[in-house]
């Protein structure tokens, strides 16, 4: 038996296309991975739904300290209807204020006619609000006249709510996590299986390999992001004020940048444990500092240059500017540039120091 004459060529396949397809197939044929990657954003969205469900405006919590005119204060506040009033002795009131059970303590001080002091925490927004509202109610009850009678009109257009702030942050977070876990784990896994070494023994171009990882990452991202955005729009009425094209551009740029970071993190690691540790080390500062759940402007001014230099800060801020503030992408040039620099530098470095075997 001898070899049949070899047909010298067969249809040419695109290596980058094949590498991408291989990644997609491997992923979608692993039901558990699919569940965690796409189930997680759904789970997160449901939790948010519970946290941000429509509910009546909270009552203002006020304690009145036992004293000669305590009942006067209690009656005046009860009339205004927006307070939740309770009466306790001095030490109980203080404890309740300290442990955030109440927002304000009203102390009656007058000897012959009602007069009150306010005990409150000026660094707590609810406490400050309670002081103002209670003061107004007590003053009016004592006979103060308003200069004019304002009419309250409610403004319901979305944009300024916490959920509107949160959604771009969650997008940024899942783009970062997806890029790092998705690229980092897969790369180290292939290294452990010696598949990288096997690929190195073929004429495969290294840029094709990295391109395949990138492209497949983008494909995984589409449903991930879509789930979160669609849920936010439908359930919470979050509105994207800027252009959809700019938003998409930012999401893709962010995904590219964090794939690069993921690749760099995984470029030398020989075990899953090593790469997990490195990834947490890289992600932790950004989770805390880059404004996912609260604005990064809360950190002191000295830390701001460092915080602004983090890629997730740039991505979150740019996403917020475009999605919530409706800014043009062209006002975000510096952030876009920073993300691009991160992408180029991490990919370049990863390619240089990459361990194939």
């Amino acid at each position, binding site marked *: 038996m001898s*070899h049949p004459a*070899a047909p010298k060529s067969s*249809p040419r396949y695109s290596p980058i296309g094949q590498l991408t397809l291989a990644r997609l197939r491997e992923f979608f044929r692993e039901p558990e991975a699919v569940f965690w990657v796409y189930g997680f954003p759904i789970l997160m969205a449901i939790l948010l739904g519970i946290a941000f469900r429509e509910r009546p405006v909270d009552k203002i919590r006020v304690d009145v300290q036992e004293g000669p005119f305590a009942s006067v204060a209690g009656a005046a506040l009860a009339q205004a209807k927006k307070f939740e009033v309770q009466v306790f002795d001095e030490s109980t009131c203080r404890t309740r204020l300290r442990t955030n059970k109440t927002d304000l303590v009203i102390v009656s001080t007058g000897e012959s006619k009602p007069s009150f002091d306010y005990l409150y925490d000026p660094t707590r927004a609810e406490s400050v609000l309670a002081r103002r509202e209670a003061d107004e109610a007590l003053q009016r009850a004592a006979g103060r006249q308003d200069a004019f009678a304002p009419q309250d009109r409610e403004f319901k257009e979305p944009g300024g709510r916490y959920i509107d702030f949160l959604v771009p942050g969650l997008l940024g977070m899942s783009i970062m996590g997806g890029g790092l876990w998705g690229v980092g784990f897969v790369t180290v896994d292939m290294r452990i299986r010696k598949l990288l*070494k096997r690929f190195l023994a073929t*004429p495969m171009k290294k840029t094709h390999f990295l391109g395949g990882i990138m492209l497949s990452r983008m494909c995984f991202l589409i449903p991930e992001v879509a789930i979160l955005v669609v849920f936010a729009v439908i359930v919470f009425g979050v509105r994207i004020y800027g252009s959809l094209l700019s938003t998409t551009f930012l999401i893709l740029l962010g995904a590219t940048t964090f794939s690069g970071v993921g690749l760099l993190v995984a470029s030398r690691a020989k075990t899953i444990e090593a790469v997990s540790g490195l990834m947490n080390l890289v992600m932790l500062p950004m989770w805390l500092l880059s404004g996912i759940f609260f604005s990064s402007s809360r950190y002191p001014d000295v830390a701001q240059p460092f915080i602004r230099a983090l890629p997730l800060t740039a991505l979150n801020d740019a996403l917020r500017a475009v999605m919530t503030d409706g800014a043009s992408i062209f006002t975000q040039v510096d952030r876009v540039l920073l993300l691009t620099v991160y992408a180029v530098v991490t990919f370049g470095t990863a390619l240089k120091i990459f361990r194939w075997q």
Partner: protein
Amino acid sequence: MDAVNGLDMSVGTGECFGLLGPNGAGKTTTIEILEGLLALTSGEVEVLGMKWGRSDDEIKQQIGISLQETKLSEKLTVLETLTLFRSFYREGLAPADAVGRVSLEEKLGARVGKLSGGQKQRLAVACALIGDPRLLFLDEPTTGLDPQSRRQLWEIIRQFKDAGRTVLLTTHYMDEAERLCDRVAVVDHGKIIAMGSPRELIASLGGEHVIDFGLMNSNGREPLPPSSLMDLPAVRSVREEAGFYSLAVTELHIALPALLDRLRQMNRDLADLTTRHASLEDVFVTLTGRHLREESPGS
């Protein structure tokens, strides 16, 4: 500490060349240097007339490689795996054709994870063949396989060689080297200790037959010193190991009666007696005093 040192060899076109040696002898290091996966600290390697570091892509286009342990993606099918590997090469076989070479046609649509060990190994060889290479490197292609799978792989390698292509393989199975290889380099501790065709190497023992025998345990009598058998006619060498003796002999019909006479004179009883053709195993044992594998010196 060098893993290999002072290896000097050349493999001709159309030849099947084997690196034979025990585990840890430096076979894999040697083959990976030739494959361009490991860098040389000193010396020179030329593959298909080209040098690593200068024409890497050209060399890789023309060689096929099967590594000792590669876990191909279990979730991909045979066809998908081969198509992926095919995409890296400028020219090569159609995936369906490569599958035919290794007789995996009926597994074309099966996931890699569902294949048996032998089928996985044949797929690995198909991945090595997909670029239609002129030169094939196989690192321990049949290690851990059942006898039938081994024979299937031998057939694949033989077909490749019959098409005028070159094969370089490593093995620690001496029967594999004897059956497949035109020439063999016996490697031990990172050095080549013998090189030639299996026939030449066996002939270098001085006798192409071997008589193996053991003696009855005769109540604490002194073991027979090997030298006491050296003067027998047609015996070229005597080896003793744990009470068993191996005699390399040129002519069996002369040596065997002489041996039996001698044992009768010495009043020793045979427990066991076999004769066989000498093998590369005997070459290795004669050169190093050790067996290639611990488990079976014969087989």
